[in-house]
């Protein structure tokens, strides 16, 4: 157990020191995986179905803010759908527009959930997101999670019924329109999933805030149980016939993943290495502030900072940082 804790501290030290490089790398990987998956599921437009385009866009995403990945994913999805069927693109585009106008405008910190949730659905571990968001987010994360679920089901419906939509004649625009909107509005599975996930987020959030021992583990367990129960109840009421085994198995795996997450990403307010510059009447200051993280073995370095003004050659007291 102690070796795990030491490993965790070492990892956190490394992350604090090299955050400047690690974060763009992670953003690049996320963008790459997302776009590759979108292309594999919806590869209708050949111009963007190429690895070079994906790599260039992923590279751009790595140094833009996180919301850029969400934007690019939406653009890719809409471009593919436009090539496939204009009505699909219109309906899904309207859906994205509504999501943006009504909720994402407030730029909550967890817009990336809208991209992560469909990814996790494809990897068959969607339940990890509501549990994790309850642990690290706020109750409003329930709305972000709901948006993510809606995005997934919108795209899922189109891919499931691609052959049917393609088979409809080109003149039957109105019929295609109605078919697509029907599929989205009357999607009971989506409603039940949204309800289950939203309740999971809120339950996990409320329980982890309690000041009792193991509050987080209790919250995660309760969240997993609530998730299964709501999905089952919804299944019974609306007769969706979701395979019970996959729901329970998926929830258990998600719970274990959430445990791993809890261990490593326990707190969000990590301190990062700061490089700041400022000046006053006498000096220019170039300051690098390195966070103190308690590591198993101490590691002392002594650095001397001297002023760069020629002639004065003054030096400050040596600074220690361990």
């Amino acid at each position, binding site marked *: 157990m102690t070796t795990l804790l030491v490993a965790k501290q070492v990892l956190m030290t490394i992350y604090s020191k090299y955050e400047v490089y690690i974060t763009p790398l992670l953003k690049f990987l996320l963008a790459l995986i997302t776009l590759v998956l979108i292309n594999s599921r919806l590869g209708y437009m050949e111009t963007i179905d190429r690895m070079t385009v994906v790599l260039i866009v992923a590279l751009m995403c790595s140094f833009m803010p996180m919301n850029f990945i969400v934007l690019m994913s939406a653009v890719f999805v809409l471009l593919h759908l436009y090539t496939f069927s204009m009505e699909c693109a219109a309906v899904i585009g309207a859906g994205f527009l*509504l999501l943006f106008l009504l909720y994402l405008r407030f730029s909550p910190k967890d817009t990336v959930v809208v991209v992560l949730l469909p990814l996790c659905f494809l990897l068959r571990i969607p339940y990890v997101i509501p549990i994790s968001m309850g642990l690290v987010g706020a109750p409003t994360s329930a709305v972000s999670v709901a948006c993510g679920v809606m995005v997934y089901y919108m795209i899922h419906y189109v891919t499931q019924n691609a052959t049917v939509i393609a088979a409809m004649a080109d003149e039957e625009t109105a019929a295609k329109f109605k078919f697509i909107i029907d599929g989205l509005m009357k999607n009971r599975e989506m409603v039940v999933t949204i309800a289950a996930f939203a309740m999971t987020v809120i339950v996990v959030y409320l329980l982890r805030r309690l000041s009792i021992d193991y509050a987080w583990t209790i919250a995660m367990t309760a969240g997993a149980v609530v998730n299964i129960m709501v999905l089952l109840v919804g299944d019974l009421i609306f007769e969706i016939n979701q395979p019970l085994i996959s729901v329970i198995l998926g929830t258990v795996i998600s719970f274990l993943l959430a445990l791993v997450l809890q261990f490593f990403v326990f707190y969000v307010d990590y301190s990062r290495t700061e490089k700041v510059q400022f000046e006053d009447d006498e000096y220019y200051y170039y300051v690098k502030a390195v966070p103190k993280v308690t590591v198993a073995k101490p590691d002392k370095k002594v650095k001397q900072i001297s002023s760069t003004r020629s002639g004065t050659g003054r030096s400050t007291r040596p600074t220690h940082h361990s």
Partner: protein
Amino acid sequence: MLNEERVVLMTKMASYEAHEGKKCLAIGSYFRNDYIGWQVLKSIISATIAFVVVFAMYIFYDFEIFMTEIYKMDLLEFAKNVLFLYLGTVGAYALISYGIYAVRYSRASKSLRAYYMNLHKLSAMYKNERNG
């Protein structure tokens, strides 16, 4: 002279300005009513666009039926219902936005108050140094 305490304070303030402070300073540069009013206005415009999109979807959903019924139904009644629905939804959304942005403004000003206190402290340090 390098005053270590002063450098530490300035570093903390520079770090605040670079990260959390950026948003707070942007919000704080408005008066409360101006900020909330402007954001609520943007919300109303977004809600209007969203309402138009949903209304268009609704029309296109049963377009043929709508086209045949448009001659039979009471257009004034229909328009009145649509208007009430519009005012209701936009009103509710504006109210929610008002609440959200009011909370954001108070959080930003609280955070800025601490920043300005540090600024005073810094200025006092400089004054002390100058006076001896």
